[in-house]
C-alpha cells in the first residue's frame, strides 16, 4: 500500500520523502494550535499570552518568528547570487537586535502597553496618533507578508511540480489563518518556539551531512580565487562545476563591493557612449558601492528595531529583566542560525551553478531546497531525498511562523485598536474575543490575495522594502519618544509619516522599473523588447533616468541613509515649533519609561490617569 502510494507520487514527479516531511510540519503546527486553543481562554491570553511566557520559550518564539522565508531561503540564494555583500543581510538582521536592546526594549517594556499604537497613544495622549500608528502597523505588516506568501507559493510548487503558484499561497495562508484564529498568541508562542528548533535542525543537519560528503565550507570558499591570487586553489575533494555565463566571476563574488552594490553603476557604465565617460563612471563605482553598503546597514539595523511584529513580543515577558534576558537569547539563537545559510550559497556556487542561469523562483532562491538532492549523484539517493525533505520542512516552518506572527500583530491592531478602542469601546471581553477571530480571517484573506500578485518579485527585495520603511518610520518614533522629553505628537507624526512615506515613494520608483525589466528579460527578440518598453513609457523613462543618474538610483533603492535622518530632523523641527503642546505630564511618562519597575511608578501613573477620567 505504502509502496504503491510512493510510486504514484513518483510518477507525478513528487519525491515522497519531501512531501512527507512537509506534511508532518504542517500537521504538527496545526495540531499544536488546536491543542493550545483549549488552554487560552481570556482576552489577555489572546493578545499577549497573559504576559507570563518564560524567557526560554519567548526567546525561541521570537527567533522562530524572525527567521522568515527570506532568512531561510533568501539569504542562501543571495549569497550564491552576489557573494560577500549579501553577508550583511544575516549579520544586520541579527545585530539589529542589539540596537533594540540598547535603546528601546527596556523602556518600552516598562511603559507596558499591548501594542505600538498603545504606546503612541499613551506617550502623547492622542487617540488620533493611535489611529495613524494602527495604519502603519497594518501597512508595514502587509509589506512583510507578501514575501512570506511568495516563499509559500514557491516551495509548494517545488514539492508538487505543476501545482500553480496561487494554490500554494491560498493553502498555506488558509492553514495559518485558521490556526491563529483558533489559538491566539498563546498557541502561537508554542508553535513559534517549536518552529525555531525545527528551522535550526533543518538548516544545520543537511549542511553537516553535505559537507562531509562534498567538502567543507572553507574548502568551497578557498576554491574561489581572490583578486590577489593568480589561480584558484584546488582543495582536495572539491569538484567545481563550470560556471555559466551569467554567474559573477570569482574575484568579484568573493570580495566586497560586488554585484549587489554595483548593479546601478554597471548599468550606467554599459550604457556610457564614450570610453572617457566609461572611465569616469568606473572611478566612481567603488565610492558609490561603499555608500550603498552603509545605507543597507542602516536600513537593516534600524529596520529590525522598528518591525512591529517583533516589538509586540517584548510585552509577553513578565518583567523588564526577563525582556532583556530574552533579547540576549534571541541574539544567540538567531546568530547561530545565520552562520549556516551562507554555507548553502557557497557550496551551491561550486556544485549547482546551473541555478545561475534560471530566474526568480527557479533560480538561486531555491538552493537550500535543491542542494541536498546532490547526494543522489554520490550514491546516497535516499539520504539526499530525506535531507531535501528536511530543508523543505524548514522552509515551511519559516514562512508559516513569520506569517503567523504577523497575523497576530496585525489582527491585534485591528481587533484591539480599531474594534476595541475606536469602533466599540464598551465591548465585552467575549465580543472582543470574537472580533479577534474575525479580524484574523479578514487579514488572512487580504494577505492571500496580495500574495497572489507578487509572483514576479524577489523575496529578499520585498523584505528589504519592509525594513527600509520601518527604519524610516517606527524606529525614529520609538527612539526619539523614549529618549527626548521635548517630542510632541505633531513632531512624532510628521517625522514618522515624512520619513516612512518618502522612503516608500523612493523604493516604489525602483520597483516600477525593476518589475518592468524582469518582464523584458523573458523576451528574446530585440524588436519585441523595443515594443515592450514603448508600451511602458513611465517605466521606460524611469529606467533611462537611473542610467543617467546612478547615484539617484542607489539612494532610491537604499533610502535609509537619508530617510532616517530626515525623519529625525522633521521630528526635532516640528516638535520645537509646537513645543507648547508637549504633554503636561511628560515627566511622569518619562519616569515610567526609565525608572526601575521595582519602584511601582507604573501603577501610580495608571491611578493618576484614572483619576483624571481617562
Amino acid at each position, binding site marked *: 500500500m505504502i509502496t504503491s502510494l510512493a510510486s504514484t507520487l513518483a510518477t507525478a514527479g513528487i519525491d515522497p520523502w519531501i512531501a512527507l516531511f512537509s506534511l508532518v510540519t504542517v500537521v504538527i503546527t496545526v495540531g499544536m494550535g488546536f491543542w493550545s486553543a483549549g488552554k487560552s481562554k481570556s482576552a489577555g491570553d489572546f493578545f499577549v499570552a497573559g504576559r507570563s511566557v518564560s524567557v526560554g520559550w519567548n526567546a525561541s518564539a521570537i527567533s522562530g518568528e524572525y527567521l522568515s522565508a527570506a532568512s531561510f531561503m533568501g539569504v542562501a540564494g543571495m549569497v550564491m547570487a552576489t557573494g*560577500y555583500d549579501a*553577508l*550583511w543581510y544575516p*549579520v544586520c538582521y*541579527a*545585530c539589529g*537586535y*542589539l*540596537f533594540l*536592546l*540598547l*535603546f528601546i526594549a*527596556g523602556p518600552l517594556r516598562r511603559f507596558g502597553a499591548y501594542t505600538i499604537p498603545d504606546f503612541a497613544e499613551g506617550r502623547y495622549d492622542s487617540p488620533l496618533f493611535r489611529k495613524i500608528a494602527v495604519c502603519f502597523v497594518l501597512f508595514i505588516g502587509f509589506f512583510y507578508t507578501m514575501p512570506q506568501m511568495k516563499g509559500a507559493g514557491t516551495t509548494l510548487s517545488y514539492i508538487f511540480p505543476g501545482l500553480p503558484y496561487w494554490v500554494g499561497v491560498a493553502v498555506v495562508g488558509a492553514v495559518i489563518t485558521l490556526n491563529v484564529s483558533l489559538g491566539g498568541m498563546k498557541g502561537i508562542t508554542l508553535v513559534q518556539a517549536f518552529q525555531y528548533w525545527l528551522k535550526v535542525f533543518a538548516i544545520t543537519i543537511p549542511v553537516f551531512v553535505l559537507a562531509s560528503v562534498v567538502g*567543507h*565550507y*572553507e*574548502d568551497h*570558499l*578557498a576554491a574561489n580565487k*581572490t*583578486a*590577489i591570487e593568480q589561480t584558484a586553489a584546488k*582543495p582536495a575533494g572539491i569538484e567545481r562545476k563550470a560556471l555559466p555565463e551569467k554567474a559573477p566571476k570569482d574575484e568579484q563574488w*568573493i*570580495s*566586497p*563591493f560586488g554585484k549587489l552594490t554595483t548593479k546601478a553603476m554597471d548599468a550606467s557604465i554599459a550604457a556610457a557612449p564614450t570610453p572617457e565617460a566609461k572611465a569616469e563612471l568606473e572611478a566612481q563605482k*567603488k565610492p558609490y558601492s*561603499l555608500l550603498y*553598503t*552603509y545605507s543597507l*546597514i542602516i536600513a537593516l*539595523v534600524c529596520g529590525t528595531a522598528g518591525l512591529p511584529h517583533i516589538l509586540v513580543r517584548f510585552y509577553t515577558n513578565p518583567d*523588564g*529583566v526577563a525582556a*532583556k*534576558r530574552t*533579547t*540576549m537569547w534571541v*541574539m*544567540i539563537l538567531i*546568530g*547561530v542560525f*545565520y*552562520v549556516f545559510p*551562507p554555507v548553502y550559497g557557497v557550496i551551491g556556487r561550486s556544485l549547482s551553478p546551473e541555478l545561475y542561469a534560471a530566474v526568480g523562483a527557479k533560480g538561486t532562491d531555491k538552493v537550500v531546497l535543491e542542494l541536498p538532492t546532490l547526494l543522489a549523484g554520490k550514491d546516497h539517493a535516499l539520504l539526499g531525498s530525506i535531507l531535501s525533505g528536511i530543508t523543505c520542512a524548514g522552509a515551511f516552518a519559516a514562512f508559516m511562523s513569520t506569517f503567523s506572527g504577523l497575523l497576530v500583530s496585525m489582527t491585534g491592531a485591528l481587533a484591539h485598536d480599531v474594534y476595541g478602542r475606536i469602533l466599540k469601546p464598551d465591548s465585552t471581553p467575549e465580543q472582543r474575543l470574537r472580533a479577534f477571530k474575525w479580524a484574523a480571517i479578514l487579514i488572512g484573506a487580504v494577505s492571500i490575495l496580495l500574495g497572489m500578485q507578487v509572483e514576479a518579485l524577489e523575496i529578499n527585495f520585498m523584505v528589504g522594502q519592509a525594513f527600509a520603511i520601518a527604519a524610516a518610520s517606527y524606529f525614529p518614533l520609538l527612539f526619539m519618544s523614549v*529618549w527626548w522629553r521635548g517630542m510632541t505628537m505633531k513632531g512624532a507624526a510628521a517625522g514618522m509619516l515624512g520619513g516612512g512615506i518618502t522612503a516608500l515613494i523612493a523604493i516604489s520608483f525602483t520597483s516600477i522599473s525593476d518589475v518592468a525589466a524582469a518582464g523584458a528579460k523573458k523576451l528574446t527578440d530585440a524588436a519585441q523588447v523595443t515594443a515592450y518598453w514603448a508600451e511602458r513609457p513611465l517605466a521606460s523613462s524611469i529606467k533611462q533616468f537611473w542610467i543617467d543618474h546612478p547615484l539617484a538610483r542607489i539612494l532610491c533603492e537604499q533610502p535609509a541613509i537619508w530617510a532616517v535622518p530626515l525623519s529625525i530632523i522633521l521630528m526635532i523641527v516640528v516638535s520645537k515649533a509646537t513645543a507648547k503642546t508637549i504633554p503636561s505630564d511628560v*515627566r*511622569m511618562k*518619562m*519616569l515610567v519609561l*526609565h*525608572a*526601575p519597575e*521595582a*519602584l511601582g*511608578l507604573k501603577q501610580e501613573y495608571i491611578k493618576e490617569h484614572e483619576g483624571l477620567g481617562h
Partner: protein
Amino acid sequence: MKDTSSPDYIHSDGFLARLMRDQLKLSIACAIFFFAALVALPLLNYYYPEFMAQRVAGFTLTWLILGVLFFPYVWIISYIFIKKSIALEDAEATAAKESAKK
C-alpha cells in the same frame, strides 16, 4: 545631588535627569563598540582590500569576520550590557527607596 533629601525625590526632575543620563551613557558606551565595527569593516574593505582578502583557513579575512566572528562579538557586547543594566537598575531602585524613606 541637592534633591536627594526631599521626600518626593522619585518625582523630581533631578532623579529623572540622572536616571536617563546614566542609562543613556551605558547604552551609548556599548553602542560605540557595535557601531565601530559596522563602520570600520566597510572602510577596511575599501582602503585595505588586499589585507582583507588574505586567506585565513580557507576563508578570506573579511569573510571570516563578517560571516562568522561578528556574531560572537555582538553576543559579548549584549552580555556586558545586560549585566550592567540590571545592576544599574537595582542600584537606582535601592537608592530611590532609601531617599524616599528619609
